[in-house]
């Protein structure tokens, strides 16, 4: 179906035929449920689809082919670090010893996994210059919440309860202010300076005895290293506040800058960005958190402890009374963390530094290729990503960044992140990563330049793009106005199955 014929697929509900399927599970003995009281039992059966395995396989294979993915092409989605996902790591996470291990087994039955996790914590602490790391948070945003709750606990335990504000630059990820709100804080937004960095004067003016924390992404979401970071961190600490680093952009600075050493108090890592674990169509990720010495009492429980004899164990509940507690059911997204561990072992120190060097070199090269065609609001060396803007193109031709993004699809590329950060007009945040070849990067630059020319000569073809995707642009307004969020069986309607 994917090579010829229609590409869109019926839903599994439309594919269902009563009586299909079976053969997977033995039949239960008669009366197996008789001991369950009638009023506790399900009265009506769920209308789940009935399919045979070949239909299921075809459905999901055909659906998969409607996706763009790192494995199918260049995916320069800024801020997301869509690098190659090594296949060894998929194999490793599926080893029976890792995959089949129950999270509540006694520690002595989990020594292999505990060793992997402990060594990964050590490696992340070394990479970040932090004193210790927890692997518990399930994603970057949960890491942020972990870090901010630790900061909250730190202030409270010192009797410093009047701090109610968290400072966040206007170019930050939306997760930063949302996290501050979840932790019970008020967000104060700090404007950016014309050079893309934090406006130091506005920053200093906002700092005070009510400041609990500042959240800084470094390199920033504009792909720029915050050159005055030392000065900013000193100002934070001078008023008794703590500094959180959003580590989303760590891929630019491996072996070059250690946030803990520079004065950040706590940070998260996105292993699905920096350490190559796959993004899974929207997750799972993992968002370990590193902290400096003074915040270690507040790390979530349980931590992984190593005894002198080389055995590992999980900390017991009451062992560290100042802990913020548990962030999730169990110790972490272990299956993801095994992959990150393999990635770090495969690279070593020199390899990780080369990752950042190549990522930064590729981004600067691509930026250079686009100079003169697109606006580059911050004309200084970028880190692993940069913002280009179609502002001039829009003024001249009416073609917007959204249109250009859709047209890129026709050229075989995934669009960059668009309209983020919110501070750049018609912005596109482009992150090539270190695993894309020079040929790919050149081809992408050529495509963007060709589209910019098209904007002048044939704008309609861009406005109507994409032309080659399975669907054209979508009616998002109706989707929001009349939400259809689940399949409803239509009585008596027999939907034809296309294959």
């Amino acid at each position, binding site marked *: 179906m994917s090579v010829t014929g229609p590409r869109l697929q019926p*839903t599994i*509900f439309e594919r269902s035929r009563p009586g299909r399927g079976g053969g997977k599970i033995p039949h239960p003995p008669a009366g*197996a449920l008789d001991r369950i009281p009638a*009023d*506790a*039992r*399900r009265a009506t059966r769920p209308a*789940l689809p*009935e399919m045979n395995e070949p239909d*299921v*396989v075809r459905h999901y*294979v055909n*659906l998969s082919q*409607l*996706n*763009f993915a790192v494995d199918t092409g260049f*995916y320069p989605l800024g801020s997301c670090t*869509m690098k190659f996902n*090594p296949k*060894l790591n*998929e194999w490793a996470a599926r080893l029976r*010893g890792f995959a*089949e291990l129950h999270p509540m087994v006694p520690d002595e039955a989990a020594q*292999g996994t505990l060793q992997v996790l402990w060594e990964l914590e050590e490696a992340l602490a070394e*990479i970040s*210059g932090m004193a210790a790391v927890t692997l518990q948070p399930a*994603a*970057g945003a949960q890491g942020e919440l972990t870090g901010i709750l630790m900061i909250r606990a730190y202030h409270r335990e010192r009797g410093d309860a009047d701090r109610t504000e968290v400072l966040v630059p206007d170019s930050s*990820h939306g997760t930063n202010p949302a996290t501050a*709100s*979840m932790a019970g804080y008020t*967000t104060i937004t700090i404007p950016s300076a014309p050079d893309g960095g934090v406006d130091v004067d506005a920053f200093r003016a906002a700092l005070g005895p009510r400041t609990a924390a500042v959240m800084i992404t470094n390199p920033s979401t504009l792909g*720029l290293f915050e050159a005055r*970071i030392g000065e900013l961190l000193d100002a934070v600490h001078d008023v008794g506040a703590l500094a959180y680093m959003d580590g989303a952009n760590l891929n630019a600075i*491996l072996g070059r800058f250690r946030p803990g050493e*520079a004065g950040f108090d706590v940070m998260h890592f996105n292993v699905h960005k920096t350490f190559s674990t796959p993004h*899974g*169509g929207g*997750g799972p990720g993992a968002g370990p958190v590193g902290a400096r010495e003074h915040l270690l009492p507040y790390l979530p429980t349980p931590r992984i402890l190593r005894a002198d004899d080389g055995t590992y164990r999980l900390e017991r509940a009451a062992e560290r009374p100042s802990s913020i507690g548990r*962030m999730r*059911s169990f*110790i972490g997204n272990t299956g*993801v963390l095994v992959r990150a561990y*393999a990635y770090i*072992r*495969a690279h*070593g120190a*020199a390899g990780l*530094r080369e990752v950042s060097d*190549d990522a930064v070199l*590729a981004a*600067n*090269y691509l930026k250079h290729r686009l100079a003169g065609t697109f606006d580059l609001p911050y004309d200084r060396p970028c880190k692993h990503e940069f913002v280009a803007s179609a502002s001039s193109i829009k003024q001249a031709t009416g073609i917007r960044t959204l249109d250009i993004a859709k047209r890129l*699809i026709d050229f075989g590329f995934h669009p960059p992140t668009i309209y983020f950060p919110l501070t750049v007009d018609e912005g596109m945040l482009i992150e090539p990563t270190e695993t894309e070849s*020079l040929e790919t990067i050149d081809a992408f630059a050529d495509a963007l330049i060709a589209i910019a020319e098209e904007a002048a000569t044939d704008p309609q073809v861009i406005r109507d793009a994409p032309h080659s995707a399975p669907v*054209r642009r*979508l009616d*998002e307004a109706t*989707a929001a106005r009349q939400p259809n*969020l689940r399949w409803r069986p239509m009585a008596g309607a027999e939907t034809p199955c296309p294959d």
Partner: protein
Amino acid sequence: MPYGPHTDDDRTRMLTALGLSSVDELFDDIPEALRAFPLDLPPPEPEQELAARLRSLAARNRTDLVSFLGAGVYRHWSPPAVDQLLLRGEWYTAYTPYQPEVSQGTLQSIYEYQSLMAELLDMDIVSASHYDGAAATAEAALMTCRATRRDRVLISRGVHPHYRDTVATYFKGGLELDEIPLVTDGEAAGTTDMAALEAMLADTDRPVAGVVAANPDFLGLLEPMPRIAGLAHDAGALFVAVVEPVSLAVLAPPGSYGADIAAGEGQPLGIAPQYGGPYLGILASTEALVRQIPGRLVGMTRDLDGQRAFVMTLRAREQDIRRDKAASNICTNQALLALAASIYLATIGPHGLRDVAAIGAARAAELESALAGVGIRRLHPGPYLNEFAVEVPRALAVHRRLLGAGFLAGLALAEAEPADPTLADALLVCATEVTTSDEIARFARAIADAVAETAGVAGGTRR
């Protein structure tokens, strides 16, 4: 670098284009005093050696044990089709479907997941996924506070202790969480104390936003969910049901007893235990709460040509749009695990799912009677599905001894609930469709031996 494409010539070409002689110049903006020294990490390892290391680390884990451990994570047969389909790069190397035209696979699969879960839960709105059962429960509790503009939630001690801890952590931003005790004796022992709940709800000075209870509860017992829902609603509170999805093939779904929100762990739907994750946080609500539910939602719509298509929708709830006013900070979720659960459900079908639940119930009954045959009896009299607590003298020592004999004797409840004296000498055991009659028979003999062998050891058996 093992996965990089650049030759020295490529790097030189890029540097030349930039007018640079070394990549170091691109890092000049890092203040000199803050530049890192070379990292102290183990040397890079060739793939072949790394594979051997990983294999040997994995082998150090004891996955050979005969297991009766559940406690929120359950072993089930997952048809190989599930994992083989998950290994397609088009699924696992894509990201959040921000560009719907090139993400219809992920978008349709999430819409189908929402629909499958809506059927199973008998709820209208299902989010595209949360981190795990505990985080979904915490988000559910936060939802009740936003929706009612109250700031106190009651959670039954029958909810998994790790979930209770997680909700307590999420509430540290200034919300109140109180625990509803369990009945200590009689027919309802081990389930939520309804009289206590009623008294807690009656405190009009501290109005309650939501009541959270689990079915089956942590001890495997069936809770009076319709009555808990009724009491919550009478007090103007919302009711959150924490459920286990496989059980819903045979047990009443949350929608049928008036739950406003359902949360749960989707791991039993074909997902490997993996020492704690990645799992699948299930979160669902009534239509009335659609603008309060956090996380991605995918809706059906049409493209410019009128073709049916799918798109992320109601985005004004989300952090990248609303920033500090968002319903939650969640961004990356567990899409691949939602896909796994969908493929699992599609592959085994509604009859298969019912059989999984029913065989689990049958095996558990067999386990109950085999244990009773050696004098090990249930701790609570109430009905259960496939997991229950048994009274075992010197439970911690017995559990430990059985580990040496190759058995994972469920969970020693004294470790999970140290504050509850009624659970000091008890094991929580479960059976599923993968538990065999032979394993049950051998386990009953082994536990009898272990009880006898530990009888002579006085004290000092606690770990």
